[in-house]
């Protein structure tokens, strides 16, 4: 009896094939959509921005696929570099035009989640996402790359320009800080 052997192609191979035939890019889209989308949701202030930035990431990746070199970087690192640049630019632009009242910030420890997030996530998950967004941008970025982007410390180091060891240490500190924020909030509620 003939057994069908399935070969799982590496992302880099598919990316290289996408240069010759862009239709192969759709396979990468299916593999990476969740990771990129979750990363954007962790880092964006609202669902609409996350939707928009996710679309821009894949559109740019498709447009620039000719310039991707598998020997230089893993595909995940290349794709998340595009995603990260887009979200950083967007946050920078937003910071420039947005004025937030300090009284308002003082009154609410965590940024409230959007109605869409409230509908999708459990209370605990909502708290977690909200708490994550209150962390300093660098810490939030690392946690999002790690747990939404599912990237190794080496890949994160390549994207951020930090050393691999520094990534590990900062990630651990960020998790500790996030846990502390959640605990503090629990105390405040009580």
């Amino acid at each position, binding site marked *: 009896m003939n057994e069908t052997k399935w070969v799982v192609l590496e992302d880099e191979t598919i990316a290289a094939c996408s240069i010759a035939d862009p239709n192969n*890019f*759709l396979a990468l*889209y299916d593999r990476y959509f*969740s990771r990129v989308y979750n990363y954007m949701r962790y880092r964006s202030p609202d669902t609409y921005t996350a939707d928009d930035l*996710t679309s821009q990431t894949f559109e740019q990746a498709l447009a620039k696929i000719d310039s991707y070199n598998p020997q230089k970087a893993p595909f995940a690192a290349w794709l998340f570099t595009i995603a990260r640049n887009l979200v950083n630019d967007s946050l920078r632009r937003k910071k420039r035009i947005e004025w937030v009242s300090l009284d308002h910030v003082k009154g609410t420890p965590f940024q409230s989640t959007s109605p869409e997030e409230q509908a999708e996530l459990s209370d605990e998950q909502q708290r977690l996402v909200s708490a994550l967004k209150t962390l300093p941008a660098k810490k939030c970025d690392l946690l999002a790359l790690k747990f939404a982007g599912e990237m*190794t410390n080496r890949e994160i180091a390549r994207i951020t320009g930090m050393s691999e060891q520094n990534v590990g240490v900062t990630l651990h500190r960020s998790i500790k800080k996030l*846990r502390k924020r959640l605990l503090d909030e629990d105390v405040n509620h009580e």
Partner: protein
Amino acid sequence: MSNRDLNAIISFLFDAVISNQEIPLTSSLPNDFQEDMRLASKLHNIDMSSESRIRQRLRNQLEKQIAMQQNSDQILNGESKTGHTQTRHTGVALLSFGLGAAAVVMATLLIFLQSPEKTAGDEIISEEIEEVSPIEMIS
């Protein structure tokens, strides 16, 4: 255990979380670590993409973008083929022109070389004719 060892362990455990492996949360790990790992696991398990409205819409959009890209590539390839044919035609025309010009030069040279040499008598006659002025002829 040194800080470096602890960081190596936590990095290993975080990698286990993101690759959905079973995490050996044994009592040998400090309680603080176990709490960190639980939080990391919760963070990783939040999936906001399953209900996303844009997943299919964006896929369709990318398919259209790919189709447009392929169409424009085909048009460009067609143009470059036409360009190649035009270049070939220009080359042939230039070659023909060159050959034609060379043939004309050769023919002129041949005519010049084959023309009969003037005799001494002819030269004297022509000189004599030139010397006679019209007034003289009338008189």
